């Protein structure tokens, strides 16, 4: 591998973004552009018994008002399916404005289209909707007595109950030390800074172009095409820059299709931007949930049993739970295990992915419980983790594709200064502040798409290359990292390669979700680039006029665009010389990666890490301020040290938010989120940032994908909240078993 791979290079999209030149999906000034605004249901449950659009229809600038009475029926009932798999990827099995039933507050019941967005917004307030309201369930507590165990969750891909290992009830019964604790989690919203946005344009051949803020352009294309009853050939999606997502734009919700329908109705391009408030009930969220953990251990803390049960709220029509049990199930060498999901149906949009989906809550529960166990038996929390470390995937007995967790613990402990920690709670004081430290393990599954992942590499006769794949850039640094992968594969300098993504015209890549984006895309880009390199080398070897004629291709290396013999570097020629001599304007190769099977072909595939936190708690005022965070992760290969560390750091700050700030609060009387704004849904601000140290342990992994990339988007949040809560316990002696931990918990 060349030094370009992993280097902390500047972002290729940096200049466009710092100058304001980058154009996002709602920033195209198209001639004749019209604007759609959605009207959401005011009630959470019931029927629409009357809808009066007369005033709205005649308001200045209004082109049309659509309701369930006149919006065209969609061609297919959408079916929830995760976008990672490259197929249609609807966020929920429901499409609004098809009948008069209201399933959740905020569900679109009307859409106003006008010539300016201000006029559309005003007209939207003039739509009069009358409801026959029926009783609703919007809190887990209201649905608790009617929970059920789903046969499958996660779009039907995972069982509602994990495979049981051994006899966990006996394991718990016979354990010397037992713990049975329940943790509760507030609902969370992703709140990317850019609201979801679609601009829909039909051309005169009835082809649709959607400029859509999405994590997966192809997912948008296939999903909208299905709902409109069009072949995918008639739908093109463009998505160059996306202003953050964190799961909100991972699956495809109603608004791109609604924008397309509105544009068709008015015969003009239509832009639809969700308001900040609408972002709280239009793209899913992390569901309110409760997790019960049973631990059985011997006196030394070795786990004999783990029982992990989750109960959460889902929609009327989908069995969705974020997969909180998956990472905890394989974290430690517990001899016996049982875990399952229970759901309650409620008046909610189907919940969805939110950063660190599943693991962010599941690992909070497990790692809080492990800390409780450590205190119960008087063992250092880190030592307890080491005693339960497992070198095989305990759910299958298979080896890990790679692990690196011991190294993470060790490096993290060094960076943090963990050794010599006084375990006594409340022992350290700094003025009004009680100071405590805590740690937690982190794990997140390495997922891969099921469909082939493709990229195309083309080199021109001047030796520059363009490499293409249909991904969007939503902040991860993919454009930069993929340029590095391509430069490495082609043997070209970084600045001679341009990576292009952002449209469905390009080779197909699945949505970049669940930290799988860099693995999938880098694999295809690597194969395309090395394929093109090999093709050129092959051509040189076959070319009687080449200095490399008849050389063994395996003995040829490429550096800075020059092919040469590894053992005799003076023998060789440049790509340019080869191409010019043969009058070739360009040369092209397609790279196709057929992903690893979901079971890793007999390997457990997870990313691991270790989190450490120091907090200060003002014991009088109940304030918690995080002073230091240290996170060390083993994400396989790092493609760009700078962008990867930024992703990890952002994730850790999300963990801080999850621990101390973020909660979407439901009012069961109105059935609506009571804090649907950025003033009332608190996310960390600049001033909350502690001293954060990040390091990565690069453990080679030859199983997950060609470059051994396990991804960095999610693992950063996992375990941070537990480390913080454990530090709060160490500081104060108080064990808070819900998130977020706020002032009232510590007074």
């Amino acid at each position, binding site marked *: 591998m060349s030094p370009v791979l992993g280097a902390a290079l500047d972002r290729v999209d940096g200049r466009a973004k710092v100058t304001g030149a980058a154009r996002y999906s709602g920033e195209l000034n198209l001639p004749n552009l019209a604007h759609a605004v959605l009207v959401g249901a*005011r009630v959470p449950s019931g029927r629409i018994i009357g809808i009066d659009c007369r005033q709205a229809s005649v308001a200045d600038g209004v082109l049309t008002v659509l309701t369930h009475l006149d919006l065209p029926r969609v061609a297919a009932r959408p079916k929830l399916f995760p976008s990672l798999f490259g197929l249609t990827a609807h966020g929920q099995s429901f499409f609004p404005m098809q009948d008069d039933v209201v399933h959740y507050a905020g569900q679109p019941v009307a859409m106003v289209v006008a010539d300016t967005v*201000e006029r559309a917004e005003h007209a939207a307030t003039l739509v009069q909707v009358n409801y026959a309201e029926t009783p609703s369930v919007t809190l887990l507590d209201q649905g608790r007595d009617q929970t059920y165990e789903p046969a499958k969750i996660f779009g039907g891909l995972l069982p509602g109950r994990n495979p049981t290992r051994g006899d966990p009830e006996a394991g718990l019964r016979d354990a010397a030390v037992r713990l049975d604790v329940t943790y509760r989690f507030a609902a969370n919203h992703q709140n990317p800074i850019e609201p979801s946005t679609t601009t829909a344009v039909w051309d005169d051949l009835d082809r649709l172009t959607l400029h859509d803020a999405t994590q997966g352009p192809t997912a948008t294309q296939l999903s909208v095409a299905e709902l409109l009853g069009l072949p995918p050939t008639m739908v093109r999606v463009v998505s160059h820059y996306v202003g953050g997502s964190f799961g909100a734009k991972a699956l495809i919700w109603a608004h791109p299709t609604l924008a397309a329908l509105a544009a068709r109705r008015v015969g003009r391009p239509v832009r639809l931007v969700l308001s900040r408030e609408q972002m709280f009930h239009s793209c899913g969220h992390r569901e309110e949930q409760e997790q019960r953990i049973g631990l059985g251990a011997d006196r030394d803390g070795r786990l004999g049993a783990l029982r992990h049960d989750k109960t959460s709220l889902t929609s009327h029509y989908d069995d969705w739970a974020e997969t909180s049990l998956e990472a905890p199930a394989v974290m430690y060498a517990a001899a016996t295990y049982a875990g399952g999901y229970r759901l309650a149906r409620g008046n909610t949009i189907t919940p969805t992915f939110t950063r660190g989906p599943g693991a962010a809550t599941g690992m909070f529960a497990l790692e809080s419980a492990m800390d409780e166990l450590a205190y119960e038996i008087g063992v250092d929390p880190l030592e307890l983790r080491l005693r339960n470390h497992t070198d095989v995937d305990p759910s299958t007995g298979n080896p890990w594709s790679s692990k690196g967790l011991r190294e993470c613990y060790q490096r993290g402990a060094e960076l943090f200064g963990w050794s010599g920690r006084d375990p006594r709670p409340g022992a350290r004081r700094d003025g009004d502040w009680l100071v405590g430290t805590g740690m937690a393990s982190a794990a997140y599954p390495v997922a891969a798409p099921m469909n082939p992942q493709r990229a195309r590499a083309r080199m021109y006769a001047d030796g520059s290359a363009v490499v293409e794949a249909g991904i969007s850039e939503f902040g991860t640094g993919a454009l930069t990292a993929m340029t590095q992968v391509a430069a490495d594969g082609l043997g070209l300098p970084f600045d001679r390669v341009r990576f292009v993504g952002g449209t469905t015209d390009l080779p197909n890549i699945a949505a970049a979700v669940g930290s799988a984006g860099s693995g999938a895309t880098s694999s295809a880009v690597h194969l395309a680039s090395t394929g093109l390199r090999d093709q050129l080398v092959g051509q040189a070897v076959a070319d009687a006029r080449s200095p490399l004629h008849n050389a063994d291709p395996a003995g040829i290396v490429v550096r800075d665009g020059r092919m040469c013999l590894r053992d005799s570097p003076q023998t060789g020629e440049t790509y340019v010389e080869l191409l010019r001599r043969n009058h070739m304007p360009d040369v092209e190769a397609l790279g196709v990666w057929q992903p690893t099977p979901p079971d890793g072909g007999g390997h457990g595939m997870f990313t691991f890490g270790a989190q450490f936190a120091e907090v200060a708690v003002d014991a009088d*005022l109940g304030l918690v*301020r995080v002073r230091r965070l240290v996170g060390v992760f083993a994400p396989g290969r790092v493609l760009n040290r700078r962008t990867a560390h930024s992703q990890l750091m952002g994730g850790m700050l999300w963990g801080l938010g999850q621990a101390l700030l973020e909660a979407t*609060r439901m009012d069961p009387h109105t059935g609506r989120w009571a804090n649907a704004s950025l003033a009332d849904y608190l996310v960390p601000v600049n*001033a909350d940032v502690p001293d954060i140290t990040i390091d990565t342990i690069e453990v080679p992994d030859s199983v997950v994908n060609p470059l051994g990339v396990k991804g960095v988007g999610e693992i950063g949040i996992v375990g941070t909240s537990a480390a913080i809560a454990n530090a709060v316990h160490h500081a104060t002696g108080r064990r808070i078993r819900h998130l977020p931990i706020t*002032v*009232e918990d510590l007074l």
Partner: protein
Amino acid sequence: MRPVSYSRVADVATAIGTVAADPDSTFLAGGTTEVDLQRIHVARSKRLVDINDLPLRQVEELPGGGVRIGAVARMSDVAQALPVRRRFPMVSEALLLGASPQLRNMASIGGNLMQRTRCGYFRDVAAPCNKREPGTGCAAMTGVNRGHAVLGTSEYCIATHPSDLAVALVALDAVVLTQGPAGHRQIPADDFYPMPGETPDREHPVAHGELVVAVEIPPLPMASTSNYLKVRDRESYEFALASAAVAVSLDAGVVTDVRLALGGVATKPWRARRAESVLVGAPATVESFRAAADAELADAVSHGMNAYKIELGRRTIVRALRTVTGDARMVSDDGNPP
């Protein structure tokens, strides 16, 4: 498009005349409340009369140690104004702990005093709210009321007043100066904010067309070491869960005079008179502070999620008093702590 008109006025008389003549009009200063509430359809004025060009931007020292602040002076400018920093640091601190730098650059002092509650139900036009629509009820009573008041509540309204500045002004016995069709008025800050009672929609005594032109803070030597403590979930950019503005005068360890007002826990900027009376003549000890805090919160009423605010209010009082008495700062001539 909703009919809205915009005009700018250059003198106070025209401003007053324009708004007084049109019941659908309102003054527009920084816009941080008005434009926000227009956008969520809570404010529905059709004519916006921009008063930013009025000559009301000065911060002036008054003879004897007081300060006069023009109504359209910006929060950020007032916070940095030397007379304010030197004589009334609690005012400067309250301003700097409010909102964000951008909003402080926009928001005016008059607008700050007139700002509307952040109660989520007030801001949600689909929810019952006696303040927004008298007689519709109060959704906050049984709703998400973690941020709501425990002092000064009524069965009609438990919304908190959001201003930090007003808390400091109430502590300092500031006076709000208005000018209207009926002439000039001087309204003590404490009277500027009525209790909600049965009419939470009546948030201040200012008549339509009457304009806040200035705020005067009378001299108070002990305020030069005053303090504004704001307790909130995140480190910045959030409304107070509880706050306290406090100034204390000590003689040989005994409290000879004290000003104390609370924010975040009450339906109005809350002058803590009970606590003040307990404190005067008492030794400046934590025990006295606790007794004062207990007295002030004795009649507090909570409504579920905000129950913690009673204890938090007490502790905020104690902490603010401890801070201002324990490490009462010397302030140098340039207004900076040495």
